């Protein structure tokens, strides 16, 4: 079933990219070469990102926004430069960028702060999400609804794995206070028309958040073009460190929102009677932040921006096409979601074979994929499955990786049938 077409390498040398990732040359289970196809869970890190973290601790570590000494000033400059790098990556201003631990914390931050601001006025109103959300974009809103009496509405997912925009137009109404939607589904690899959905939200005066955890590595992400109020993502899926994430919040919206957590670095004055807070983004960054995380993420973004976006897109689209073709040729295999996508995330189930068994036998052959519900239990239910196997590519994925995946998959299926 191995397709004979090779991945185009014009203007994009995947082997040169790959050589920048030391972990990809290691073996597992003794001497089995690693084939890493779990990039939607987390991407590996190029040497320059690893070096930037180590350099920070070797030369520049000090707490930021505090002491007047030289190291403190240098660390603060690096940290704020990182914020500016993220801002420019998103087409935003630095004061619109809040550093968090990751996407999950970002959504929780917005859900908690925004709902505190609008308070009791949410009773009788609704919050809209979609049927393909990650649990991180379901549970925080359920918690808001439980606390405030708001209603949670869910945009239907169609059989082909795309969102039913007509249904979105029906359920986003005058009573809608917030719309929170995933940009690229971590399970299906489908890209949603978030620009359209944000415009539906805007039309009824609702706030909008886009979960960009999977999207930032695949799409140009211009906040003004998308037209969202908030956009969140994690550093670790963008070749950056783990434990660092980003909230973009429109400056005029953030200015009206109360703090998420209280503590040091977010206050203007503190007395025992009351405290006053700094403006955004500092207001939302209580405590010592993840400094090496922010600096590592900025390095990852600089690294990522050196790759020609259209060449990368072509590379990933051809990998996705090849995966779809290879998988579709297997008897009894069903791909969930669209069978055509330029995003290299493919979820599948095979008749009579448990995804966990596939995961075990692929792992024995050095192939790392994800099996399970992918933190999207309602979506699993929608498609009548309890778990799927998911393979996901990255900029460094080669056609040889996909050859190895196909071979390993065939051997696994043979054993299990």
């Amino acid at each position, binding site marked *: 079933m191995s397709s004979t077409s090779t991945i185009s390498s014009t203007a994009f040398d995947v082997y040169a990219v790959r050589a920048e990732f030391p972990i990809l040359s290691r073996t597992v289970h003794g001497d089995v070469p690693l084939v890493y196809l779990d990039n939607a869970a987390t991407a590996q890190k190029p040497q320059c990102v690893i070096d930037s973290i180590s350099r920070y601790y070797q030369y520049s570590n000090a707490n930021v926004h505090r002491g007047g000494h030289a190291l403190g000033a240098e660390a603060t400059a690096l940290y704020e430069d990182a914020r500016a790098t993220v801002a420019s990556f998103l087409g935003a201003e630095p004061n619109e960028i809040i550093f968090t631990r990751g996407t999950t914390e970002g959504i929780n931050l917005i859900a908690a702060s925004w709902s505190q601001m609008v308070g009791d006025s949410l009773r009788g109103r609704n919050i809209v999400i979609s049927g393909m959300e990650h649990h991180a974009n379901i549970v925080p809103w359920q918690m808001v609804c439980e606390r405030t009496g708001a209603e949670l509405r869910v945009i239907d997912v169609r059989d082909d794995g795309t969102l039913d925009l007509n249904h979105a137009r029906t359920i986003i109404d005058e009573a809608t206070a917030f719309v929170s939607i995933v940009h690229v589904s971590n399970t299906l690899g489908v890209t949603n028309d978030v620009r359209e959905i944000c415009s539906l939200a805007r039309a009824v005066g609702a706030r909008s958040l886009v979960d960009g955890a999977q999207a930032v590595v695949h799409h140009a992400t211009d906040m003004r073009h998308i037209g969202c109020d908030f956009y969140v993502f994690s550093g670790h899926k963008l070749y950056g460190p783990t434990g660092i994430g980003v909230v973009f919040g429109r400056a005029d919206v953030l200015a009206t929102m109360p703090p998420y957590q209280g503590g040091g670095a977010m206050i203007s004055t503190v007395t025992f009677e009351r405290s006053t807070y700094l403006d955004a983004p500092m207001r939302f960054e209580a405590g010592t932040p993840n400094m090496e995380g922010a600096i590592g993420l900025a390095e990852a973004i600089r690294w990522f921006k050196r790759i020609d976006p259209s060449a990368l897109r072509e590379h990933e689209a051809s990998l996705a096409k090849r995966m779809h073709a290879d998988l579709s040729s297997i008897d009894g295999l069903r791909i969930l979601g669209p069978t055509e996508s330029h995003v290299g995330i493919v979820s599948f189930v095979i008749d009579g074979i*448990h995804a*966990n*068994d596939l995961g*075990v036998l692929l792992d*024995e052959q050095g192939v790392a994929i994800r099996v399970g519900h992918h933190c999207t239990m309602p979506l699993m239910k929608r498609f009548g499955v309890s778990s799927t196997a998911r393979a996901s590519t990255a900029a460094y994925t080669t056609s040889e990786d996909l050859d190895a995946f196909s071979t390993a998959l065939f051997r696994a299926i043979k*054993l*299990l049938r």
Partner: protein
Amino acid sequence: MLFLRHCFEPSNFFVDQHIMTIDQTIGDLQNEFASFPDWEERYSHIISMGKGLAPYNEEYRNDEFKVKGCQSQVWLHPSITDGTIHFEADSDALIVKGLVALLMRVYNERTPTEILNAPPDLVSRLGLDQHLSNNRANGLASMLKQIKLYALVYSMTRTT
């Protein structure tokens, strides 16, 4: 090394499995597993053991008999007759079902005392700890723990 014993020790041919001790059965399995040259044969054997597991009574396929701590679904139902525990077990994943079958071969049709006094190092003696990921090794440990819990309860209630 774990697998030094020859896999076709003549004495094994004359030992009836029902009267083998837990220790002997584990030794038997050790020999079996030592004979596989690669992961494919090892898993092929585990899978065929799973396929050979006695059918599970649908009446017991519920949360009460589900083993907690496993990634796949595992059910384990105990009963006791004349001081011997009879387990029925199943899993929805084939490899896990094979591991369940392996545990059944060691622990099924034993007295509570035999189970409670059994050596605790089954997983490492079979070399499975080197071949199972943490999650799967933990799942196996959860099943083993559940088997021992049932044995403990029976040993305390002295049900016949």
